[in-house]
Each structure stands twice: as C-alpha cells, then as structure tokens.
C-alpha cells in the first residue's frame, strides 16, 4: 500500500503543476533469446493510457506464441487504468498459449495488479448480440407500438372504472367525493385557463372572419362571414381550441403531478393506507375537467364570435347589430349543442390519457419528461380524432 503511495508521490502532493513533468507512456520491444521482452515506461494512468491503448491491442493480437516478459520496472506511475492495460495484455497472451511473466512490479503494483486481474473475463462474455434484419426490427417496432396502444386502452378503461368506483378501496367510511379538491382543481384548470383561451379564440375568430371576408368580397357576399364564423366557431373551433389548450395546460400538469408522486412512492403509500390512488388523485381531476371544459367552451365560443364581430366591423363595415341579426338567422340551438356536447367527452379523454401516462412514470427524471410529452401529444391527437368521429356521427344522424 505504501509503495503505491510512493509511486504517486513522485508527483509531490504540494506541487500543483506535477502533471507537466509526466513522461508519456511507451512500449519498447526487444528479443532476448527465445523470449520477447516488452519494456514499458512513462506514466500509465487514466489520463495517459489512451496514448498506448491501440498499440497494446495490436500486441494482444499478434499471432506468435513466443513466451513474453512484460517489464514494468521503468513505469513511473501506475493506476488502475494502466494496470488494466498490462493485465489485459498478459491475459491475451496467455489465452494465445504463451507464458507471460510480469517483472519489476513495485510493491504498489503487486497489490494493484491482482486486484485488476479479477476483472478480466473471457472474451466470449462480452460478445454483442447481432442486430436483426431491418424489416424484422421495423415489424417488431410496429408490434410493440400496437401492444402498447392496446395496453394504454386497457389502462384507460381501468382508470375510468376505478374513478367511477370512488376513492376508497376498502368498503369503509369516507366520502368518495371530496368537494374541496374538485373545486381547487376547477380553479386551477378552468378559471386559470380563461385568459389564454379567450386570447387564442378571439384571435382565431378574427383570422377566420378576415380570411372569409377577403374571399367572399369577390362575390359581394361579405355578410356570409357571419354564417361562416358562427357555425365554425360554435360547432368546431371553440371546443377544439379549448380542448387543445386544456390538454397542453392541464394534461401535462396531471401527468407531472401523478408521475412525481409515483417516483417518490406516494402512490404506493396511498395504496398501503387503503385508498385507491386513482380515486384519490384522478377522480377530482376528471370531475373538475368534465365541469371546467364545457364552461371554458362557452367562453371560447363567445370569444371567437367576439373576434369575428370585431373584424366584421373594422374590415367589412358590418355593424354589430347586423352581425347579431344575421347570426340569429344562421345559427340555432342545435349548432351550439353540437359543439358543447363534445366538450365533456374531450375532457374525459384528456384526463384519462394524462392519468395513464402519469401512472406509467418510472424511476428516472427522463421518464417523467417523456411521459409528460407523450401525454400532451396523445391527448391532442385523441381529441382531434374524437372531433372527427363526432363530425361523422352528426352527418350520419343528420344533426
């Protein structure tokens, strides 16, 4: 032990620029009778071994079965990395059928080399698996994606069922509904989202009105922008924009909250206490979403119409009275409900997708980030697909 310390002592502890005095590692080969002598010199430590790694590997691969002496007496410093190279060379030569002798090991090296030798394994153990044909890999990817989509669906239905079942796992006291938690969530997910929803929807309403007016002007039919904005906003835009905003705002929050609780075993603690974690964590959020999203949709509808009305006044000179008058003619209650009915379903989908992703979070910070991302992407995707399904459904029933 002390010997090794003395090797390291060649650079005095109190001299900071000791590294400048290092000699690079070197290998000198010479023949001595029937034996090959490899004389190593210089500093063989973690910082310098990359200089000789390639050369050492070449020596390991030589075909000759001559007996070998590795002389390390001229090595100034040796640490585990240097010792590894020496032992790796020795092991390779022994495997090739040669006799190997290591000479000139200092007292420190005599403790270090055997410690390193234990890590040498037969080369077979490190052989890599061959990558399969790319078509197979592609099919495997497809299969995995299908399976995980199916498992997500199962998990989603499980969460929906567990939510409906309520908070407590054991049939005991306690209320399934915790009004305070639900109102808190409505405040965060609904009230907190009003400014951004109003802003986005009024801008989109204004853009649609402006584009419509510009095109319809050619036909002298500018007044029909009211029909355009009114039907588009109430049936599609209001609810779709709201759902996308909520998926981005609240879906990510739900996944992150549940996911970080999983990482710190809080979800397991809930289970052990006898509570259904999905009932406790997911239920208030789902209820809050189902209440908040339709309300937000109504606000979004108003904001979209407001933006359209403003552009109609400023760009096409249609006064608000005429706009509202025309709106009465083109839109009826069924148009409003066609949009509004979709809102709770979208809220449910966002909440379930976000909760499923949150429950899938594993131990690492990276997995949290990955699942939050996929929660937002998946819920926006599902919301748009759902919107399309509703459109087909309405056409089929003539709504």
């Amino acid at each position, binding site marked *: *032990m*002390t010997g*090794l*310390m003395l*090797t*390291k*002592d060649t650079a*005095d*502890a*109190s*001299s*900071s620029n000791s*590294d400048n005095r290092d000699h690079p590692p070197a290998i000198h080969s010479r023949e001595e009778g029937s034996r090959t002598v490899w004389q190593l010199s210089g500093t063989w*430590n*973690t*910082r310098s*071994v*990359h200089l000789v*790694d*390639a050369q050492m590997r070449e020596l390991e691969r030589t075909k000759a079965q001559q007996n070998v002496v590795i002389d390390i007496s001229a090595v100034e410093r040796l*640490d*585990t*990395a240097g010792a*590894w190279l020496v032992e*790796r060379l020795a092991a390779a030569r022994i495997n090739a059928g040669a006799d190997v002798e290591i000479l000139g090991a200092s007292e*420190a090296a005599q*403790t*270090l080399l055997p*410690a*390193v030798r*234990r*890590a040498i*394994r037969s080369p077979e*153990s490190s052989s890599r698996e061959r990558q399969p044909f790319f078509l197979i890999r592609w099919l495997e990817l497809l299969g995995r994606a299908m399976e995980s989509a199916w498992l997500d669906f199962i998990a989603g239905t499980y969460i929906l069922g567990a939510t409906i079942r309520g908070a407590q796992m054991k049939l005991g006291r306690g209320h399934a509904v915790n009004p305070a938690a639900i109102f808190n969530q409505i405040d965060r997910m609904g009230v907190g989202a009003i400014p951004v929803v109003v802003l986005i929807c009024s801008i989109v309403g204004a853009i649609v009105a402006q584009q419509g007016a510009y095109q319809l002007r050619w036909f002298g039919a500018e007044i029909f922008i009211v029909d355009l904005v009114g039907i588009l906003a109430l049936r599609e835009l209001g609810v779709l924009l709201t759902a996308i905003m909520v998926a981005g705002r609240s879906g990510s929050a739900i996944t992150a909250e549940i996911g970080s609780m999983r990482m710190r075993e809080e979800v397991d603690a809930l289970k052990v206490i006898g509570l259904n974690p999905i009932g406790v964590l997911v239920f208030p959020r789902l209820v809050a979403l189902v209440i908040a999203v339709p309300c937000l949709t109504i606000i979004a509808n108003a904001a979209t119409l407001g933006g359209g009305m403003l552009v109609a006044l400023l760009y096409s000179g249609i006064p608000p009275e005429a706009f509202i008058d025309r709106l009465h003619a083109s839109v009826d209650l069924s148009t409003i409900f066609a949009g509004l009915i979709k809102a709770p379903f979208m809220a449910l989908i966002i909440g379930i997708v976000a909760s499923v992703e949150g429950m899938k979070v*594993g*131990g*690492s*910070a*990276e*997995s949290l980030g990955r699942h939050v991302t996929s929660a937002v992407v998946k819920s926006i995707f599902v919301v748009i697909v759902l919107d399309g399904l509703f459109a087909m459904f309405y056409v089929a029933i003539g709504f």
Partner: protein
Amino acid sequence: MPDSSPDLMRQTGETNSDAGTRPVVLSVRDVTVAFGEKVVLENLSLDVYRGEILGFVGASGTGKSVLLRTVLGLVPKKSGSVEMFGVDLDDASEQERVLVDMRVGVLFQHGALFSALTVKENIQVPMREYLDLPKPLMDELALLKLEMVGLPPDAADKFPSELSGGMIKRAALARALALDPDLVFLDEPTSGLDPIGAADFDELVRTLRDTMGLTVYMVTHDLDSLFSVCDRIAVLGGKKVLVDGTVDDMMQVEDPWVKSYFRGKRARQIDLSARAEVN
C-alpha cells in the same frame, strides 16, 4: 489503532506524534460559514493526511454536511481558505481547478447517480468529460471499476432505479473512482445499509485505500466504521473541530457529547467485540 496505520508509519518513517510532517492532502484553515445571521462553522481548521481514512462525526445539525459542501465549493464561505493538494481553491486558475477536480471523487449520501443514465454511463460521465479515451477502453474501465467495488458485470446496463440501496452506494462509489482520484469524500456511505452490507462496504473502502492509494474523508455516524476502518477521527461540535485523534484518544476526551458517543452503551459493545476480533 487500526492495523494498517502502524505499518504505514514504519515504512515512511513517520510517527503519530510528528503528524505535522506528513503530507497534507486537504487543509482547511479558519473557515467560517454562515447562512444569513446564523453562523454554522466558525474559524474551523482541519488537516487530512495522505493515505489515511479520516472519520468525521458530530451530532446531527452541527454542520458536517455543510463543511463537506464547503470544501467541495458547493457552499460559499465567509472567510478562511481550503487547500487541496497544495492548491488554494479560491486563488486557483481554472486550469488548476480542473486538475484538482480530476483528483477528487465524491460519494453523495444518496448516491446522486444520474437517473437517466445506466450505471456504466454514470461511471463514464467523468471519463467523457476529462479524458480522450476510445469507447471500448472506456467500457472496459467502467467494468473494471464495477468489479473493484464488488458489483456484478450485469449491473452495468441497469438504471439506478433498478438497483437496491447497497448497489446504488457501490455504483456511486465506482463513479467517484472513475478517474482514479487521490482523495475521495464519502458522505455517510453506510447509512441505509444493513450491518453486514455496511461491514462489507467498510472493508471495501479499506481495500481500495490499500490498492489505489486513496485518501478518504468519511462523514459517518456508524460506530462500526469508526472503530474498524478509520485511522483518525475528527469530532465536529461548537462550530469547530472539537478533537481529533485515534479511537483510543477519543476514549480520553471529557467532552459530554464525545463521551456519550464513544463511551456510550452501544460504543462499548462494539469496542469490546472489535478488540476481541483483533486478539
């Protein structure tokens, strides 16, 4: 007296009474640390000598972790200086700091392994940062470090979340040893391990000290570690180092906390069994 120390002194011609002449690896001088008005450490001085295992104890909340973090530069100090390998860390140029950083390894209390990387990648982080090693050699060195800390090779491709508490400590130690440091800081290395695992870990620290020539600064509460592997013990109390010396020295100290710590019921039992083992 732990068995390795007399050996060391005989060979290097040093004696315990003449501790001042042994090479000092880490020197803390008159360090004061305060958070706002609350002074945690005041004019604290401490030397760590080459090749020793220093055990650092103190009641909870006396600032052991603060001192460790101050030495590592993670907590700013009000006054005083910290020298590692003769380099004053406040005056050091960036180049000198990097050279010092490469010679220091740290094992944090909870491992602090990067959760997004496998164990092997964790060990390779410092290698990638500082060294220019070819990939196959880096893999080999990572596996070598794993072997040295007593982890099986198949742990290399696992993520930290898949490891047990003891394996996390060992993997974190392997990362601390990635660059073959001269000085390692261990923050409560045996906390959260079962007694057998803790004893193994102590033995591992001693073996590594002997094979790699490490100097070890170990914050610990584990009386077993203090009695079995530490060459020297420093006690933190009253914002400075109360006493430092061997276990036998601790037995003579009359400070109430030190007395109850080293001569309490638990300590006596361990001491007796440790002495029985030696004889």
